[in-house]
């Protein structure tokens, strides 16, 4: 509630000296990216249309943010790290059409990341691939898949690794169960898991997004930790959408659409690269092939038949994740 009040106050104060303003409701770790992206877009839009646009940002845990929009937070734009958190806008609030993902290229995901391992300096436990994580005596820090998109991707990446190796669901479940036996702490969010691993010195490996890993290395000088790329991992797509009901009421559809399109422009894609997000536009991706380690990436659609299915089978109450911990 307080957050919303502050937000309203912010909106109000900025509306006083801006022609148009957009509110982008996003998840936790895009903070740094949008700090660069928004001014770039404002400049581009000013040159193109002469219109001054201010973009306000709201960040927080992804599901919490999506829920706020459903409950009435006036977001023109929503940018998340998994499709379920945007689907909910259709399911619970009918704020967007059902086929929102078809409106932009690449399933409305201009950027992507993947789950990788961060290990301590010198890699003392010699962790090279997924199989090394389930060995006895190895501590693995993963965010809680029940409360965090980051944790869900890590879980699904492990599951998909077994499937991609030719295993079946039973084998995958067994593997994931062994993996989570090695998890000493389940933090509620990706940043919390980072703190546990980095500041509390817990665990031998941290499973998190590639862009978060690079941020950790940058923030901490980079020599205390090493990144390990597994042979196979998940493509974590970052979908975006405008919120139809809100932009129609605010009369901001044109500029909101421009904002979304800017994500796919060479400039927007380059900014993503700067923040260690993998570009999805072919030409930019080809140019930066050398900047991102090439590994086998599978999509959620390919292995799990879409997010809705994955959510239902694995993370709903009584799903495979709960079964791991059931006695």
């Amino acid at each position, binding site marked *: 509630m307080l957050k919303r009040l502050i937000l309203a106050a912010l909106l109000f104060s900025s509306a006083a000296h801006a022609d148009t303003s957009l509110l982008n409701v996003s998840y936790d770790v895009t903070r740094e990216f949008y700090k660069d992206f928004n001014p770039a877009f404002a400049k581009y839009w000013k040159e193109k249309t002469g219109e001054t646009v201010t973009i306000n940002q709201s960040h927080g*845990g992804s*599901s*919490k943010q999506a*829920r706020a929009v459903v409950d009435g937070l006036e977001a023109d734009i929503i940018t998340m790290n998994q499709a379920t958190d945007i689907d*909910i806008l259709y*399911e*619970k609030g009918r704020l967007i059409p059902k086929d929102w993902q078809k409106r932009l290229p690449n399933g409305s995901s201009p950027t992507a990341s993947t789950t990788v391992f961060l290990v301590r300096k010198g890699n003392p436990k010699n962790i090279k691939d997924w199989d090394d994580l389930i060995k006895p005596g190895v501590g693995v820090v993963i965010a*809680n898949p*029940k*409360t965090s998109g980051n944790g869900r991707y890590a879980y699904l990446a492990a599951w998909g690794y077994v499937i991609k190796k030719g295993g079946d669901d039973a084998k995958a479940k067994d593997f994931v169960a062994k993996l989570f036996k090695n998890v*000493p*702490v*389940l*933090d*509620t969010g990706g940043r*919390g898991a980072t703190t546990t691993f980095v*500041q*509390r*010195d*817990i665990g031998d490996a941290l499973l998190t997004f590639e862009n978060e890993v690079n941020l950790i290395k940058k923030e901490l000088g980079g020599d205390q930790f090493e990144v390990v790329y597994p042979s196979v991992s998940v493509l974590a797509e970052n979908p975006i959408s405008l919120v139809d009901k809100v932009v129609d009421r605010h009369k901001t559809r044109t500029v909101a659409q421009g904002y979304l399109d800017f994500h796919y422009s060479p400039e927007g894609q380059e900014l993503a690269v700067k923040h260690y997000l993998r570009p999805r536009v072919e030409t930019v991706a080809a140019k930066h092939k050398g900047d991102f380690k090439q590994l086998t990436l599978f999509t959620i659609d390919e292995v799990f038949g879409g997010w809705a299915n994955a*959510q239902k089978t694995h*993370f*709903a*109450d*009584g799903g495979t994740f*709960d079964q791991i*911990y*059931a*006695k």
Partner: protein
Amino acid sequence: MAKHKNVLPGFNLSLGYTLLYLSLIVLIPLSAAFLKTTELSLAEFWQVVTAPRVVASYKLTFGASLIGAVLNAIFGLLTAWVLTRYTFPGKKLVDALVDLPFALPTAVAGIALTAVYASNGWIGSILEPHGIKVAFTPLGVVVALTFIGLPFVVRTVQPVLEDLEAETEEAAASLGANRWQTFSRVILPALWPALLTGFALAFARAIGEYGSVIFIAGNMPMVSEITPLIIITKLEQYDYAGATAVAVVMLVISFILLFAINGLQWWSNHRISASR
């Protein structure tokens, strides 16, 4: 029913405001929670609130809150005693320190406690070689809940102790009571109601605590997951009905417990006034 004539005027007006205020702030939001659970059938409701993980979390939440409140009742009484009966340099400072858990954002408290009690923290590194793990275990939950509950006992007992004049104790002593008798027969009965209130407040506060606990608990299913986290988890899955179902169970248990504590208080009051 015969209408009582009150000596003080404005009874109807003030009661009206009280009811309105309570309704707006407490009753309406809470009944909304109850209403939301009606989306579930009775069987579904039962299944949600008795799932093994949820039951494990009740045990942890209520158990750890109880331990925390008992610890606070004992050490809070001691603190209040020291603050009212003795003068020493820095007393004002200690007095102010007691209120800190009130003012501190709970997340900050959680992070600070975790940093100190983790295996590489100041206290954690001393305890760890002795096989005592605090951070990321149920013990950590107890520590956090004790921390946030401390001011309640001290602040409820302190004014009563201040009012309780030292002369009573001197009188007891001059009538031949030894120190233990003075404490258990004279001081403690007078303090009981305040102590119980403080205990109940600390207990109730601990049951609902979320912010500080999630950092130190480790949040392992069946082991160190508190009920408020279960509720948040359900919300993250957009399972509003399930979340409110668990919330309703918590509310009902808390209400029964608080009601029982109030009853105990009434009973002890009654006994004291009857024995006079």
